[in-house]
């Protein structure tokens, strides 16, 4: 194999949301960055716009910290595009979770090769279940072509939707059942 396989793009996370099985909770979290260029900060990272991006402005590793009350997180979705970002595209990302800054443990490390779309990162613990945590840190350890700073266009974080109605059965599938599931 002469050229490594490129990372294939994943599905648009909006599709995930429409299934009703996950819910985006980034809006309930506090986001912070290790560094950023003025005008290219957290807002650009969370604005649902793939044209705007976060540009870091310091030394590696570049960090994105997401803090919330203890929640189950299932999937992390990152949008990265080699064609537009070239040497700013992250190539090695480490995802760490924990209670606070001093308590983080790496649970995932990804290698990206010329990504061109959404990357879905499932956040599962040793028992293959979604993790419950207070904080997630995404660390960019290296960029393509050994670039120093990184661009990240969009990050979304998803929690599984609990079957809120009564009983411990999995979700119902037909409208006939769902019609009677709740009073509204």
């Amino acid at each position, binding site marked *: 194999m002469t050229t490594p396989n490129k990372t294939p793009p994943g599905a648009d996370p909006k599709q995930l949301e429409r299934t009703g099985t996950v819910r985006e909770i980034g809006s309930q979290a506090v986001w912070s960055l290790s560094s950023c260029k003025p005008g290219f900060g957290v807002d650009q990272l969370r604005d649902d716009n793939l044209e705007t991006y976060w540009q870091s402005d310091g030394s590696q590793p570049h960090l994105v910290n997401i803090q919330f009350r203890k929640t189950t997180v299932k999937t992390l979705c990152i949008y990265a595009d080699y064609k537009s970002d070239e040497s700013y595209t992250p190539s090695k990302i480490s995802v760490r979770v924990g209670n606070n800054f001093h308590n983080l443990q790496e649970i995932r490390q990804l290698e990206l090769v010329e990504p061109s779309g959404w990357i879905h990162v499932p956040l599962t613990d040793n028992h293959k279940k979604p993790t419950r945590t207070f904080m997630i840190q995404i660390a960019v350890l290296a960029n393509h072509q050994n670039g120093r700073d990184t661009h990240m266009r969009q990050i979304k974080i998803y929690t599984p939707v609990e079957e809120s109605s009564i009983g411990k059965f999995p979700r119902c*599938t037909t409208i006939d059942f769902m019609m009677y599931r709740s009073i*509204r």
Partner: protein
Amino acid sequence: MKFPPKIPNRKTKSKTNKGGITQPNINDSLEITKLDSSIISEGKISTITPQIQAFNLQKAAAGLMSLLREMGKGYLALCSYNCKEAINILSHLPSHHYSTGWVLCQIGRAYFELSEYMQVSIENEVRRIENYRVEGMEIYSTTLWHLQKDVALSVLSKDLTDMDKNSPEAWCAAGNCFSLQREHDIAIKFFQRAIQVDPNYAYAYTLLGHEFVLTEELDKALACFRNAIRVNPRHYNAWYGLGMIYYKQENSALQKSLDINPQSSVLLGHIGVVQHALKKSEKALDTLNKAIVIDPKNPLCKFHRASVLFANEKYKSALQELEELKQIVPKESLVYFLIGKVYKKLGQTHLALMNFSWAMDLDPKGANNQIKEAIDKHYLPDDEEPITQEEQIMGTDESQESSMTDADDTQLHAAESSSRMVFASARWNNKRRCL
């Protein structure tokens, strides 16, 4: 239009009928009202003496009163949530009154309270007849939300917001539309707008509360439901919302909402499950029976009754219930899952497997979730014996792929362990606290 009989006859007729309201009386009185107005419009006032005119007016007033009395009776029945009664009374109104916005809206609301969302054609009538009408449309929008008809709902909300930006109903409809698309933040924004437009509109608070529940912001939801109740203490929907939140927080307070609306089968279904969770299974069965008597078509009630029977080890009756349910809702994977569990308990593993695979067919993602959930619960490990038998049976069945058999394996194991899972609130609640 027939000519009224001679006036002396009319006099005697109306005297005898003053006590009761009969259909012909209303019709005749209305005929007179119409005749009255038509005569006046034809400019024939000179031919009618003042006495006759006064008489006519009196008859017209009586007719009007009887009409209003009927409508009032219907409205009273609706407000006490005797919805079937209300529909009965209101459908007996003469047709030109029946086909008005107000009456059809009340009937639509009655069907809504009965959870018969399929009768949404009534609401369509309203839109057709009075397409400027905004009141009562919020019920229509919630009906469409239940039926998950997103196109119709978005059309409705666009129309309403275009028509009247200052009405809370329009913003409620818009909020429902986005909630159906699972854009909860936007839905919340619209419901807040509805509240801004009219702070005394209880339903907007309730809908906002439900949205907060969906985004898991339970304290804000509690505040909203309380606001709704402050505005309208008889808004059973808000009491239900409060009850559900407390149920999640491991208390139960659904009784109040049931007091206000004793006819809602959905509500009764919920209470049945809560009671079962609190180990009052007999009571739970009672409540669920009541619910089913009220609305025999509510599949979820039957499902919960079947699961209560299953938990109480009355497998034959549970099976019977589930067979009926299969007829009503043939495509629901949960039904097959429960049937599979019952067969597993009865030891008929072939049928159990069949039903489990049907269930997984109908909902592959649901099956994965339940495997994961069930494996999480550590229960008595005396399922090894039946499982090995399972493996033997499945080993001989070459037609299934290995991944499918593995999934079935784990699913059966999970089903076995979850079948031991009585709806014991203590254990379940403990688990929830530990998570």
